[in-house]
């Protein structure tokens, strides 16, 4: 399979920018096999470990370049910015946290949406980026996704959302974050009614309010291998049930076994699989 390269990828691969799961430096340690691997080699191979195939975190703009045809991505609603409706302060003000996250990641929020072509097939795409406040959903993520879904409904285009969120609904925006789950899900309800095809791709990690809303509502649900996917965080579950968690609990494979994922697809096959699935459902 040939991977598309896009001018977008350049902006996301600026050197020296720390990335969640892929720390700075020439070398990095694989979480899975423990080997020290050459960073450039990982990045060249779709952010996979060259030794064991472990799926590292992929920045959202790199993901676009991996999946969509060169130059085909048209980003939407990138003028939306988070506000601070609660005037939330924990160890530091939410406003400062947002600024720091933007500086650290180069993103203005945890989600990008837009339209593009995947192997020549037009679609609407959304990606949540787990680097920005753990990929959590606040008002901007909810609004961007909702608008994108409404556009997909209007244009009758297939919809692919790639989820990565350890944070679920964003605490710093309080109840308004919870309500984004309702808002996005209702938009998916309308999209479903007009017969739209929604493919949800779950990546490591997809938890909480993201898992309990749009990420679970795909007509087809795909997971990358060994991703952490679930409602409650494993530590919360462990503290509640007070027994050791089963091996592989809340992994992609666990979800497949229990009937909540259609297919586990390794990253090198993702683009071609998506194109095949679209061809079955969209004429």
């Amino acid at each position, binding site marked *: 399979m040939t991977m598309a390269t896009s001018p977008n990828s350049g902006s996301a691969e600026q050197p020296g920018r720390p990335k969640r799961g892929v720390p700075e430096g020439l070398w990095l340690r694989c979480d899975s096999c423990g080997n020290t691997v050459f960073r450039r080699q990982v990045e060249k191979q779709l952010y996979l470990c060259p030794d064991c195939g472990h799926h590292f975190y992929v920045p959202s703009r790199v993901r676009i370049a991996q999946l969509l045809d060169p130059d085909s991505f048209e*980003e939407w609603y*990138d*003028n*939306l*910015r*988070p*506000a601070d*409706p*609660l005037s939330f302060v*924990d160890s530091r003000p939410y406003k400062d946290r947002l600024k720091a996250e933007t500086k650290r990641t*180069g*993103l*203005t929020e945890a989600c*990008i949406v837009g339209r593009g072509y995947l192997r020549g097939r037009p679609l609407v795409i959304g990606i949540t980026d787990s680097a920005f406040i753990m990929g959590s959903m606040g*008002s*901007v993520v909810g*609004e961007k996704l*909702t608008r994108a879904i409404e556009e997909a409904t209007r244009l009758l285009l297939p919809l692919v959302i790639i989820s990565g969120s350890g944070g679920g*609904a*964003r*605490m710093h*925006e*309080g*109840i*308004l*974050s*919870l*309500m*984004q*789950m*309702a*808002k996005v*899900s*209702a*938009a998916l*309800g*309308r999209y479903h*009614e007009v017969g739209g095809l929604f493919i949800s791709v779950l990546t490591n990690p997809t938890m909480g*309010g993201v*898992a*309990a*809303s*749009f990420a*679970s*509502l795909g007509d087809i649900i795909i997971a990358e291998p060994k991703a952490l996917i*679930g*409602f*409650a*965080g494993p530590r*919360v*579950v462990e503290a*509640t*049930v007070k027994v050791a*968690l*089963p091996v592989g*609990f*809340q992994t992609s494979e*666990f979800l497949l076994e*229990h009937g*909540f994922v259609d297919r586990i697809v390794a990253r090198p096959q993702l683009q071609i699989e998506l194109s095949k699935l679209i061809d079955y459902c969209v004429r």
Partner: protein
Amino acid sequence: MRPQNVLPFERTIFELEEQLSKLESEPSTPGTLETIRNMRADIAKLKREVFDNLDAWQTVQVARHQERPQTRDYIDLCCDEFLELHGDRAYGDDPAIVTGLAKIDDFRVMFIGQQKGRTLKERTQCYYGCAHPEGYRKALLKMEMAAKYKLPIVCLIDTPGAYPGIGAEERGQAYTIAYNLREMSRLGVPIICTVIGEGGSGGALGIGIGDHVAMLQFSYYSVISPEGCASILWKSGKFADKAARALRFTGKDLLQFGVVDEVLPEPLGAAHRDHRLMAATMKAMFVRQLRTLSALSPSEILNRRYEKFRRLGVFEEQTATTASV
């Protein structure tokens, strides 16, 4: 009549009330009658003062009070008839969500409510009000049945959150809640949701998509429990009071955010002091809303509900589209 669980800020109230009942039980003289009158007025004044000024963390404690009326109490007090319907047709019957057909005044409705349980046995069976996927599936199944027969739906929300257990994850807690959110937004009958105690996160929202969303004065509705938020952001659950204030999850704020449409006043000293009065207030709201919403066509209801949630969120929209990096 002192409840087993007296909250710290209620202590003085109960002490005065005990003195009062002692006085009332003694043979009365013109002097004691005067004292009794004054004491009653003082107690009422104190209750008002205390409960008008509860902070967010104190509100959480009232919302969790063991003697606070629960779904089954409201069923007894608001409904002229209740025919419970059990089971999700897939796995089991979750006692943490009660569902059934009910009569409220002239209206026949589907009544759905989260139940925490009062005795230790009940609480254990109900996982303290934390439903499993089968509970959410049962709720949706009965709601879909209601929509088929054009029955309005009443939902009472009272949960610390959906149960975070191994079985719950194995049986698809995330999927089941997500599916409820999508499908509740598509039911063409009136849905009235009321947070009666704890509105805990996705577990509350899972039966919370309604045309009229109300909450009781001393309930809260939050993206995360104050303890959970504190343990993540303040690194210890001990700072739950701080998290409670930061999350802005009581009635006044939620009205302002447009998340709830109405905050129902509680009896003097909160709902646990007078179940009947609380139920009467709630029943009056049900009847009012059932009258209003029944006048709408299914498509009006669906559009209204969509727009109601569509509007929620606060963000900035920059006019000049700038590069996103």
